[in-house]
């Protein structure tokens, strides 16, 4: 019990001071039938640091580490190299063990960082403003739809078929309870996104159109016309970015007219972490700022007129507004926002552009190599660092076989869309700067082998 500083002598002295004979006297309000008389059975007692570390290390060893294999998984979580100084900084106790900055005079470190983070996100997205982060991309996506409903006072949201199916699931779950009307469709294997189909559906009941960029198949498209048509109907365009590194080389959604841009910031500074914690990004046009969910950091002055930062507009938040609150967000991903911000500061404009260029080049190389394989075709012509291939067989089987050969090959559309048989032969392949030429060759060779062995799909 190395974390507990009181010893028995302290406890005895303190019990006297509080006027209790035993510790049980302090639990006197617990009904007798509910109080436990000893440690819970079936749970082990305390263990040494060495023993605990050994146990956790043995669990860690059961996992195939991405860094030990040719690795091509994306679909909403990307493996990028994170500079060593990022983790060094987020492990500083003054960041790691600080509380939410409600007392700004002694939290300027966190607050200035959040102000810088907001500015970085807003610029990357091409938005006027951004908040101090959300839980993750998927919950940020749903909050954006709720925000669009508040602004437009309409309840119908059109979700692009290119939106990450887990994001769609999250929105559908919530919409069932809030009675929002979500229109969703399955992706087809066309090389282009479904903007025309979305435009056809926009009407006077539509609150928003939600598109992902790059989308779940890796496709990218100019959303300017979609934004214009949405605006004509007074509906909002929400863009979802799950791979923000892309914005180092392609146009930002804000530039193309998106009203709200949300995203997953995991790519920059955070790491894979088996799905979390991640960091939701959220930006919008200035005119909607008071409808934006989440924490906001704003500039102000102190009593001496010096510049400083505070959390602001918190009267929108649920701990104050109780049942009138406009969102479920009661915290942010502060430490992940710090990791994002530090990594972005290390990159800078020049570094981000180079990183994006390397990602794109590696992905193009991989696509060109895979296109040479008999039986494989690349679905999308336009992409950043992720694209989709047809394998002519259920991709789930291929992935398992490749994993047995030490290659983590990508995400099968069968896993993402279990009900859509027509998508089962699709494999989404992400290629970042962490992938080498040898990795690409290993994947291609193994795929050639396996497809040859299996023959074509009956």
């Amino acid at each position, binding site marked *: 019990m190395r974390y507990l500083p009181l010893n028995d002598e302290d406890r005895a002295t303190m019990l006297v001071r509080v006027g209790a004979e035993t510790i049980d006297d302090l639990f006197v309000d617990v009904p007798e039938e509910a109080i436990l008389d000893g440690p819970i059975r079936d749970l082990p007692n305390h263990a040494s640091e060495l023993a605990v570390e050994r146990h956790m290390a043995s669990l860690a060893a059961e996992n195939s580490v991405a860094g030990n294999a040719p690795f091509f998984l994306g679909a909403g979580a990307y493996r990028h190299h994170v500079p060593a100084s990022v983790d060094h900084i987020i492990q500083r106790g003054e960041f790691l*063990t600080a509380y939410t900055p409600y007392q700004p005079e002694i939290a300027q470190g966190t607050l200035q960082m959040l102000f810088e983070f907001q500015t970085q996100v807003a610029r990357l997205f091409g938005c006027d403003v951004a908040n101090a982060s959300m839980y993750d991309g998927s919950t940020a996506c749903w909050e954006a739809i709720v925000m669009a409903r508040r602004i437009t006072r309409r309840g119908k949201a059109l979700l692009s078929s290119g939106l990450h199916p887990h994001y769609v699931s999250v929105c559908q779950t919530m919409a069932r309870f809030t009675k929002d009307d979500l229109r969703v469709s399955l992706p087809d294997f066309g090389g282009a996104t479904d903007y025309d189909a979305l435009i056809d559906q926009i009407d006077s009941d539509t609150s928003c159109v939600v598109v992902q960029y790059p989308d779940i198949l890796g496709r990218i498209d100019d959303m300017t016309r979609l934004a214009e048509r949405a605006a004509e109907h007074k509906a909002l365009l929400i863009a979802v970015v799950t791979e923000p590194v892309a914005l180092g080389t392609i146009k930002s959604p804000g530039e193309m007219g998106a009203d709200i841009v949300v995203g997953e910031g995991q790519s920059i500074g955070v790491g894979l972490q088996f799905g979390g914690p991640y960091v939701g990004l959220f930006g919008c046009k200035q005119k909607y700022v008071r409808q934006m969910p989440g924490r906001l950091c704003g500039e102000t002055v102190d009593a001496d007129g010096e510049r400083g930062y505070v959390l602001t507009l918190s009267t929108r938040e649920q701990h104050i507004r109780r049942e009138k609150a406009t969102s479920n967000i009661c915290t942010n991903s502060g430490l992940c926002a710090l990791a994002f911000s530090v990594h972005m500061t290390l990159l800078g404009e020049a570094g981000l552009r180079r990183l994006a260029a390397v990602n794109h080049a590696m992905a193009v190389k991989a696509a060109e190599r895979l296109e040479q394989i008999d039986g494989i075709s690349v679905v999308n012509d336009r992409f950043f660092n992720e694209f989709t291939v047809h394998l002519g067989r259920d991709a789930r089987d291929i992935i398992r076989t490749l994993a047995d050969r030490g290659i983590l090959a990508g995400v099968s559309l069968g896993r993402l869309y279990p009900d859509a048989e027509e998508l089962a032969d699709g494999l989404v392949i992400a290629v970042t700067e962490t992938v080498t030429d040898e990795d690409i060759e290993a994947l291609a060779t193994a795929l050639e082998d396996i497809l040859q062995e299996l023959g074509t799909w009956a």
Partner: protein
Amino acid sequence: MGMNNVGRVTVPQETASDKASATATGNRALMLKEPLIFESGAYDRTGVDIPDAAEVKSRLCGLERDTVIGLPGLAEGETVRHYTRLSRQNYAIDLGLFPLGSCTMKHNPRLNEKVARFPGFADIHPLQPIHSVQGALRVIYQLGEWLKKLTNMPAVSMSPKAGAHGELCGVLAIRSALEARGDAREVILVPTSAHGTNPATAAFAGYKVEDIPATDEGRVDLEALKARLGPDVAGVMITNPNTCGLFERDLKAISDAVHDAGGFVYCDGANFNAIVGRVRPGDLGVDAMHINLHKTFSTPHGGGGPGSGPVVFSEALAPFAPLPFVEEGDDGLLHIIEEETAQEHHGQSFGRMVAFHGQMGMFTRALTYMLSHGADGLRQVAEDAVLNANYVLRAMEDILDAPFADSGPCMHEALFSDSDFAEGFSTLDLAKGLIDEGFHPMTVYFPLVVHGAMLVEPTETESKAALDQFILAFRSVAERALAGDERLKSAPHHAPLKRLDETQAARKPVLVWTDPDPRAEAAE
């Protein structure tokens, strides 16, 4: 496009009393003024060495970015220095006691950090084939088993991303269970002493919220609650130990009454660290409860997050728990039950709340902490947390109004009010005075049922010596508030900044940095 030193680094305004201490740079010995990265960085500067991209035929096909993004970079050394300087303007649990009631700031063991960074946990993808991530699934499974046993609840959902998200998860399960039996109830009852997030959550899940008053002794008014129960009430959201710092003695009776009326009981488990190992909420009839892993199981707060809010469920709500979750299969492997596999046994699940599996990085930390403490240690955690809180309560009640000091022992937190302060002095003045004494202020103005509330929670990781020093500071500042010491009204005097103008920030929000030069031109 360099942008060095073009910003608005402010020089401190000199006041008569301050003149001698003014410096040319604005620095004060070890406390240095730090400009924003937008004022010190440059667009062509970078702290990473990224190789040249290979020559390929671009497949961006006309979507190439042709504008400046506006992201300044710093060299690696400058970056480390920038954030290290910023860090020194923060208070943190590593620097001292955080007496934050209901927020529970305790020591964050570094073994937890080390374990969370094992590549076997940190460098794995959420969509890897399940046989390649069995150890990670084992962590989720084992942690869930601990939570079920500690609460005596048969089911757990690990995916909620924060406490409030866990509340939402619990209420959606209640609504799903009611809908499954064709029962369209519309009202959730929330005692006035509950967390402010509780009514917000109920409303966000589509319910009408009605308050239930507290008794004079700071607990739910059982008779008022019983009188309001009826066929329109979906459930009750209750916080136990409650936000007045007290154990809800009548929780079992409340649960029985709510169940008899066909509703469900949600318990806000934010304060679970006061009872862990001594009381199991399942024994008190609770149907759903979220557990903030940072509060009870020491994952770091990180300046606002990330949080993690697993939810435990009763038998009645278990079938409706959200996807995904981890289950042992007949093949001896652990499986992730998600959309693909849920139909067979989990068709009643209300669906998915987050993209992947929840906060894995928090799970590894929490499980490491649980194993370190063990069942016996966690029981000691609750005992020491409660002892420390009562120690603070009894050390202060002779000078500060403690509205529920006679209602029974406080649990993990002690509640005071500003009712005896001198005219014109508020809880905020006391809070800012504590900053000058080297402490983070307590939770202020919460709970709402007490005027000028101050909620103090020392937690179990504070020594008697640390408590004594805090009590010395707290008593001293309290005496100044009671006596009307004017200097307290402008506190803090020794923090990196003086009292900040929060009204100005809200009136005309400045949320992003803009280059001051164009703005100056526009103004001319």
